[in-house]
Structures are given as C-alpha cells and as structure tokens.
C-alpha cells in the first residue's frame, strides 16, 4: 500500500460503515485510476469532495432511520403525549387556581386566563392528530408553543425587564415540552398511529394520572404543610422538568420500543433545559449537581432505550444487492 492509497483510505474512513464494507475497495480503485502519476497525496478539492460525499451519505442514513417505522411510531407517540401535556398543564393550573384562591379581581384572573391560551391550539393539534391531518396537527402544535412563549414574554418581561431576556425562553419547561411535541408532530407522517398504539383507555387513564401528578406543581405556591412543600420543591427543582419527565416515563412504560423511543424524544429538551438552567446560575457546586442530574437522566434514557435497538437491515446499503 503506497502513501496515496493510505491517505485515500484515511478519507474513506469517514464514510458510513455499511457503505465502506461494500464500496471501499471499489472507490480506492476509482481514486487511484483517476490520480495523476507521481501524485503522493489527494488534492484539496478531491479531499473536500470525498468528505462532502461522506457527509451526504451519513445525512441520508440519518433521515432514513428517522423516517423508518420504529421512530415514526415514537414521533407520533411523543407528539400526541406532548400535546396532551400542553393541554392538561394549564387546565390543571386553572382548576387549582380557581379552587384554592377564588379570583376576586381581574389582576388575579388575568394571569390564570392567559395560561389557558395554549389549550385551544393543543386541542386542535390532538384532534388533527386523531384524524391524521398531519399538516394541521403540526401547525397547531407550533401555534401552542408560540402561545406559551408569548404568555411568558408578556407576563415576565414587564416584571424583570432586560434580565428576563437572558433567562428566556429557557426557564419555562412547558415551552420545551410544546416545542418537542411540535417537532415530533412535524416529523411524524402518521400521528394517528399514537392513538392506535396507546389505545383510548390508556390515554384517558394516563391523562387522569398526569392531572393528579401535576396538581402539586401549583400547590407549592399555596399554603400547604411544610413537609409537602419541601418534598414538592425538592422534586420540582428545575421548574418541574424532572417531574414532567417522570410523568411521561410512567405513562409510557408500555414495554414497547415505540414508547421508550418517545420518552427519549420528549426528554431531549428537558436535558437541555437542565443544563441551561444550571449554567445560568453557575457555581462550582451547581455545575456538579447539574452534571450528575444530566448523567442520571441519560442513564435512565439509555436503560429505557436499550431494548429499542433498531432492527437489522435498517440503513443498509441500497446497492449492496447483486443483481
């Protein structure tokens, strides 16, 4: 093996494994045949072209994997469950607010009403997902996310001014959830699959459970026994993200790969939020705990996703078959 061939092989090492297995020797042959005699290293254009080719092959395989059926099921489940949480969270908050402190004045009522604005788009998204109208489901879920961002801006900015912008929008876990749901519904080609996979009874039972678990989120602002508030604030450090994640994980313990993959899809934004929220209040200790939390979350996700390995043949080289 001469120096030129070794350098070509080093560039081809960037190609996807399945492509290399089938085409590496063949490509080396083509590259050596096209090289000028006496040339000892690939030219810059040729190197760039090879690397760009590798990038395109990797990108196409990634798209193919996401478009493949196991991830499609997961995207549908993540989108529907996410939209359901976006719908239930403000409703639970409104119910709690009305029961615990009946609004006496508009200034109490107004924040409660604005929290409810994502409910309509989230309901539209769920309805459209149920009818498999994916464009409407995706548009409505982005509308829900935009509503949450808008609510946050109108409520927070007047109080904290410029400081709010440094924290925005990373401090609101429901925004993360809404964006994750919107991305999932945008990428999902058959959102209705989620309802088929989950089943109507499971969706209702899980919704009730989510409401029960979400109620204490709002009680931390209300007069409750110190022990309860201590537990709640302990669980809810980081804006309830861990709690919501736990709800999702519990609700989706379906013993199905699609469910575990859906948990992974919905958890990505929470991992990002956890990292961000700690990095903005950076102290050496804070960084360490954040790192530990992220590692713990990653471990949970890894265990959940372990059995959701992709089936053999997925991402195989399309030209590997001999005619």
């Amino acid at each position, binding site marked *: 093996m001469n120096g030129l061939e070794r350098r070509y092989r080093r560039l081809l090492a960037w190609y996807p494994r399945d492509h290399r297995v089938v085409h590496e020797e063949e490509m080396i042959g083509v590259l050596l045949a096209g090289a000028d005699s006496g040339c000892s290293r690939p030219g810059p254009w040729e190197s760039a072209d090879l690397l760009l*080719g590798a990038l395109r092959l990797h990108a196409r395989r990634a798209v193919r994997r996401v478009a493949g059926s196991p991830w499609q099921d997961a995207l549908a489940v993540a989108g529907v469950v996410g939209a359901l949480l976006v719908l239930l969270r403000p409703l639970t908050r409104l119910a709690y607010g009305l029961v615990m402190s009946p609004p006496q004045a508009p200034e109490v009522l107004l924040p409660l009403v604005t929290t409810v604005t994502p409910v309509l788009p989230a309901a539209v998204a769920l309805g459209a997902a149920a009818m498999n109208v994916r464009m409407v489901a995706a548009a409505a879920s982005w509308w829900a996310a935009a509503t949450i961002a808008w609510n946050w801006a109108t409520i927070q900015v007047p109080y904290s001014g410029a400081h709010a912008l440094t924290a925005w929008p990373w401090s609101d876990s429901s925004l993360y959830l809404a964006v994750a749901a919107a991305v999932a519904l945008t990428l999902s080609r058959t959102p209705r699959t989620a309802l088929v996979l989950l089943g109507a009874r499971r969706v209702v039972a899980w919704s009730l459970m989510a409401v029960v678990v979400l109620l204490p989120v709002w009680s931390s602002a209300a007069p409750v026994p110190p022990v309860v508030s201590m537990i709640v604030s302990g669980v809810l450090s980081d804006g309830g993200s861990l709690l919501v994640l736990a709800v999702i994980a519990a609700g989706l313990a379906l013993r199905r790969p699609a469910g575990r993959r859906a948990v992974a899809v919905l958890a990505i934004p929470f991992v990002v939020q956890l990292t961000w929220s700690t990095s903005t209040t950076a102290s050496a200790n804070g960084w360490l705990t954040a790192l530990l939390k992220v590692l713990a979350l990653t471990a949970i996700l890894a265990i959940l996703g372990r059995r959701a390995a992709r089936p053999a043949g997925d991402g195989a080289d399309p030209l590997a078959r001999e005619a």
Partner: protein
Amino acid sequence: MQEPTFLILTALAAGPQHGYGIITDVQRISDGRSRLRAGTLYAALDRLGEEGLVEADREEIVDGRARRYYRITGQGARRLAAEAERMRRHSEAAMSRLSGLPDLPGLAGGLA
C-alpha cells in the same frame, strides 16, 4: 434533476459501466467541462440506488480489487427521458427566441 445525476444516468444509458468508466464517460459527454469526482459519484449512486433508478450489475476483480458495474433501471431510463425532454423544450424555446434577436456579436453561426 441536478447535472451530475443527469450525466451519470446518461453515461449508464449507453450500457453498464464501472465507477471510473462513468467518470471518464461524463467527461466525454460534457466535452471535458464537467469533472465528476469520486465523492460526488458515490453519493449520487447511493441516492440513485435508493430511488431505484440505478442498480448493481456485476462485479469483477481487476488487479486484486473489486470493480462493480452499475446499470440504469427501467424507471431510471424513464426519468432520464422525461428530464431530457424537458431540457429539449427549454433549449428549443431559448433557441427560437434568440433567433428573433438582431444579430449579436458572438452569436453568429451559433444558431442554426
């Protein structure tokens, strides 16, 4: 359809060819103006294979190295024909309009 794709399918329309054969043929078809590089060629072949426009034909060993031949599929030929027809219509339109222009330097003799 992008130019490399068009040229690769055109090269294969003549019959099955191996990778280096496609590269030299593309150079011939384009009068040496288009130079197809290996990275572009194999990324395009991967995509064309996935779309069912091209398939592997046979493999032979030359100097101890595998050499795979590719051939155009029926679907690939239909797609190439449709693209060639589209380009023909466009170039005809361009030519007929250009012939209506007063003589421009550099165009003389270029229009039949």
